[in-house]
């Protein structure tokens, strides 16, 4: 960092944050903020660092050195390009934290640290970036993880969508846990931790031409606490998966295919909020294919099903948990649902994105 930057007052408290002097000169992001010089340093000193590591005034280095407990490390990476950047229930920032924390939690790992790489578009309003960064910091705090390294690049106006965020996450596996699709066993029970389709429909509700006046809020949330509660009650969880893009249908198809087992779903058992159901009906969408960002699917042995259910329901993020299906010998590799009429339908993986239909 240059000496000029060091002489500016450093904001350490986010509650008091208002655009500090050096950043105030630039109400929006300019190319220089990605140049690696003074402007870049000011962004780090006055926005990113106070948000992600309040009170930390140690020298910045090229890489962060960590002492990690344990020998089995889980790592994951994800990139976030959601539009709009801010939506009911979150921002691209909190989504990035939750998505990465959840990927780690689904392996049974305890999430520890995250990295955050930003690609900012020239012209992005500084105030909006600040809201996103603060939301990200809040999400990290609530999830109990630290954001320990980062990077910023700026692309020319028209070459980015405001903000793209890439995160990596590192977690540790505290025991010999092996939670993976290959553990799905015939006779196992499938549970979901709550209502499906909330996030996807919250996003859809903001898209041009598909606006509703609606109470659909994204369910974006960190699931590590929920997983811990579940695994305390049921140590032998076989499979965990967070059904993000492509929804529950995609996740269960993947698990069925990976494990070579059949999965039978009870449509009537799926928890779906009335507003989500109504929005899906209006657009001709199937909630099974709509993204979730704060829900998990758990596959557990049959004799642990009720214990699993009550442990999920006792946690604030799992109050609407439900048993939704079972692992079967029939139709290996396929997901089949029993409809409200007692008939059956095969639920295939969507080819691409599910689009609203008129027909």
């Amino acid at each position, binding site marked *: 960092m240059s000496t000029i930057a060091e002489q500016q007052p450093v904001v350490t408290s986010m509650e008091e944050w208002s655009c500090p002097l050096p950043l105030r000169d630039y109400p929006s992001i300019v190319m220089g903020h990605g140049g690696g010089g003074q402007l870049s340093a000011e962004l780090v000193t006055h926005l990113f660092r106070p948000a992600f590591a309040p009170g930390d005034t140690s020298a910045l280095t090229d890489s962060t050195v960590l002492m990690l407990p344990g020998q089995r490390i889980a790592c994951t990476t994800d990139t976030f390009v959601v539009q709009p950047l801010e939506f009911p229930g979150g921002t691209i920032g909190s989504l990035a934290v939750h998505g990465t924390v959840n990927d780690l939690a689904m392996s049974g790992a305890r999430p520890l640290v995250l990295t955050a790489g930003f690609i900012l578009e020239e012209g992005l309003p500084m105030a909006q970036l600040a809201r996103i960064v603060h939301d990200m910091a809040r999400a990290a705090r609530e999830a109990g993880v630290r954001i320990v390294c980062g990077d910023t690049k700026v692309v020319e106006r028209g070459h980015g969508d405001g903000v793209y965020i890439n995160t990596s996450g590192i977690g540790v596996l505290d025991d010999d846990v092996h939670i993976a699709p290959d553990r799905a066993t015939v006779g196992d029970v499938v549970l979901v931790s709550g*209502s499906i389709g909330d996030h996807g429909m919250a996003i859809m509700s903001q898209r041009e031409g598909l*606006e*509703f*006046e*609606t*109470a*659909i809020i994204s369910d974006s949330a960190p699931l590590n606490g929920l997983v811990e509660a579940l695994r305390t009650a049921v140590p032998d969880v076989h499979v965990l998966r967070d059904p993000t893009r492509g929804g529950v249908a995609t996740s269960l198809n993947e698990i069925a295919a990976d494990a070579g087992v059949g999965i039978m779903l*009870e449509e*009537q*058992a*799926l*928890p*779906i*909020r*009335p*507003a*989500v*159901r*109504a*929005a899906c*009906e*209006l657009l*001709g969408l199937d909630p099974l294919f709509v993204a979730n960002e704060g829900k998990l699917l758990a596959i557990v042995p049959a004799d642990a099903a009720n214990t699993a*259910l009550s442990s999920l329901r006792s946690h604030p993020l799992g109050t*609407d*948990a*439900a*048993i*939704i299906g079972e692992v079967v010998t029939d139709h290996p590799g396929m997901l089949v649902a*029993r409809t409200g009429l*007692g*008939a059956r339908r095969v639920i295939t993986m969507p080819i691409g994105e599910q689009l609203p*239909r*008129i*027909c």
Partner: protein
Amino acid sequence: MCLAVPGRITSIYDEGAMRMAKLDFGGITKNVCLAYLPDAVVGQYAIVHVGFAISLIDEASAQETLHHFRSLGILEEELGEVADEDYAPPPPCPVPSQATSLS
């Protein structure tokens, strides 16, 4: 061509020269064009296709149809008729948890 969903008219207003309405679809509300139902009033139900209300729902007729459906098979049950074995309805779904509608 045929995805049309029923909603209840909660308010009617004009947007420029266009007659519009706000409809409640049971959890979400959306503004739709009401130009094709000039006699519709608040409280009535209409079906909506691609942002247009195209027909009112005759509630009396709906209730009559449901009543007819609900009385099907009751006579057979009362007379103790046996269902055709080849076509026994599938066993009831194992009911694991709560209803699907969340408040």
